[in-house]
Structure formats: C-alpha cells, structure tokens
C-alpha cells in the first residue's frame, strides 16, 4: 500500500508540475524586470512598510474613539473597514515580496557560480516570510485587526530587512537599471 501511494504521488506530482510549470509567463532578469523590481522596492519602503503607517492601521486609538462616540452599527462598520484595509496591506506586502523573489531568481540564473545551497536557503527564507504573511492574514480575517499587533510589527520588520538587502543586491545592477530606464524613457518619447 505504501508503494502504491508513493508511486501514485510521484506520478501525480509530475502531472501537476507539467500543468503549471510549462505555462507561458513573463521572463525575469531583463530590463523590464529590473524596473519592476525597483518599483516593488519603492512601494514596500515608501508606501507600505513605514512604521507609522503600520502602527496607524493597527492602532486601537481609532477603535476606542469610535466605541466612545459611535453606535454599535458604526463600530461594526469601522471594524469591517479596518479589517479590509489590514488584509489589503498584508496582501500587498506579499505581492511585493513575491515580485522581489522573482527578481532574485531572474537575476541569479545568469551566474555561473550560482550556489545551490545558498539558493535553497534563500528560497526557504522567502517561503517562511510568505507563510508568516499567510498566518497573519488568517489571524486578521478570523479575529480582526486588533488581535495581533506584535505579529504585524515583526512581519513588517522582517519585510523591511528583506527590502534593505534587496536594495543592496540591486545596487550593482544600477548601470543596467539606468540603461533600462533610459530605454523606457526613449520609448515613452
């Protein structure tokens, strides 16, 4: 029975991989990808991750104010809206991290000295971060935005660190980025 399950699982996994891996996708590592990676970094650092913005979304002060002055209907509406904003924030962070991960893979594939172990550990790191975001998403969805402020803080800090390292990683690509930006500008004209 174990043999049957093992071989059927291998067969099913291969069919699954064939279905998903061979679908056409946009290529990474080129000039467009560089521009998109820069945009992802800018959005993460400038628009999504600043501590004050995160604190504001998950701060209880607004809820206390609504509870003091509003009816239960207003409170319910406020919590619904705040939950939506929190979920949107988390999903945007995930999207941008995904974009950065794809950029890294797109750039790393060109190196002859690529180290499989390093790549695997980096993949694990990104996966853990994504998983943390998923757990946070489930937490906020089930129990609202005011139940896990420390998780929010930790996830935001981790994402911010990823950003800073990614920015350093992108630094050596500046000439390519500039060239790509120049090309994009010329096309726009």
């Amino acid at each position: 029975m174990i043999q049957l399950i093992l071989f059927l699982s291998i067969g099913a996994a291969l069919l699954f991989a064939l279905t998903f891996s061979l679908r056409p996708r946009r290529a990474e590592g080129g000039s467009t990808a560089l521009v998109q990676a820069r945009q992802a970094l800018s959005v993460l650092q400038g628009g999504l991750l600043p501590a004050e913005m995160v604190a504001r979304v998950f701060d209880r002060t607004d809820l206390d104010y609504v509870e003091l002055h509003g009816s239960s209907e207003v409170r319910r509406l406020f919590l619904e809206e705040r939950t939506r904003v929190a979920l949107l924030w988390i999903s945007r962070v995930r999207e941008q991290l995904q974009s950065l991960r794809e950029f890294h893979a797109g750039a790393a594939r060109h190196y002859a000295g690529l180290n499989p172990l390093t790549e695997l550990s980096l993949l694990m790191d990104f996966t853990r971060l994504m998983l943390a975001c998923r757990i946070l998403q489930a937490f906020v969805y089930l129990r609202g935005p005011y139940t896990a402020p420390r998780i929010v803080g930790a996830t935001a800090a981790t994402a911010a660190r990823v950003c800073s390292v990614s920015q350093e990683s992108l630094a050596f690509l500046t000439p390519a980025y500039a060239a790509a930006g120049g090309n994009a500008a010329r096309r726009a004209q």
Partner: protein
Amino acid sequence: MLSLAIWWCGILLEALLLFRGLKGKFVPQYPNFYIYVLSLFLTDGLLYVAYVFRPEIYRNWVWYPGFLVLFLGWGIVLEVFRHVFSRYAGVEKFARVGGFFVLGAMVLFAVAYPVVSPNESTAHNLYIRLQRDFLTVQAIILFLLLQLIYYYRIELGRNLKGMILGYGQCVAVTLSAIALEAHIGAKFESSWILVQQLSYLASLVIWLIGLWSYCPDPPPDATIGSDGNYSALASRTRDMVSAAGTQLIKVERL
C-alpha cells in the same frame, strides 16, 4: 482490435514525426530525441511484422526491445537538460547535482532491494521492475527540472515544451499504471495496457504538434553578473537569512 488500431496509429505517428524532423532539417538539433523515436518506430514495425507472420517469435521477443527503449528514454531527459540549461551554467549545475543525487539514491535502492528481497528474474518481471525504477528516477528528475524552470522563469520554445509535456505525461501515467497493476493484480492488466497505449498515443500527438516545425528556445533578455558578483549577492543574502530567521522566531512565539 482497439489495441491493434492504437498500434497502427502509433507506427503512423512515429513515421510522421520522423518525416517532419527530416523534412524540416532539425533532426541534428535534437539527436537523442530522434534516436528514441527511431527506435520506437523500428521496434513497433518489426514487432508488428512478427506478430502477423511469426507469432511465436513475437511472444519470445516482445519484452526485449522494451529494455532498449527504456534506456533510450534517458536520451529525452538528457536532451531537455542540454537545451534548457545551455544558457544558464549555474542553474545547470544545480540540476546536475540534484539529478546525480536522485540517480545515486535509486541505483543504491536497485542494488540493495534484490539483496533484501530476492524475486524471480524472468524477462517480464525484470522488465517491469526496471521500468518502474527507471521511470521513478526520470519522473523525479523531470519534476526537479520543471521546478527549476518555474523558479528561474526559463523560457522554452515550442519544440522543448512539446518534448517535455509528451514524455512527462507518458512517464507519469505509466508509473501510476504500473503501481496500480502491482497492487490490484492481474484483473487490472488489460486496463493498464490500454491506459499505457492511450498515454503513449497522446505523447506522439503532443510531440507531433510540438515538433511540427523548428522552434528554438528564446534567448534570455539580458546577461548580467559574474561569479564575483554572485559571491557578494550570496553573502548579503546570508545576512538577510539570519536576520529574517530571528524575526520569524519572534512571530512564531507570539
């Protein structure tokens, strides 16, 4: 009758596949693949002649060409390796390390298993066991290869996509059918032969569509970086891994 019809269709499709390759002059681009198709064509054709005119020869020899085809099947995996990673030396190293690891583990298993659990070694039983072991290794290697293609966003041409899809689905279906047959027994035999034949026919159709004309893999957008740059990137990445790990432990404890 259905099996015979599938057999005829198979020979016809194999001939058409070879004809298109020769006509389009792209056989030299994929030599291992076309050697495999040629071996299938010759095997099917000769076995059919034996089946019609000398059935006793067919009965005695039917399993032996299978060994040859089984070994030549590796040619397709090698062909895919050669083409997919020709422009990505680092990813190719990654795939090679993973491939050797899986192959080594399976060879170890294939050597150790008969010692631990000896079995009767008729051509049929040996073929079935070899086929299962070979297909398992190929399935795992193809799976790893597809993960690398997906992760590193490597663009493939229509020829290579057709080659991988056709062979991959045949490997997956045959492996599942062998496992089911071994578990359920003789009553599943006629069904699993039909399933295998249909899957093989599907492979030929996919190959014919994918390799109707020559369509090379698109070149990568840009070539950036060098070994020195990767080392710098890797050290920065290691810093990030430890920092992220510390943060995530905090998350898990909350």
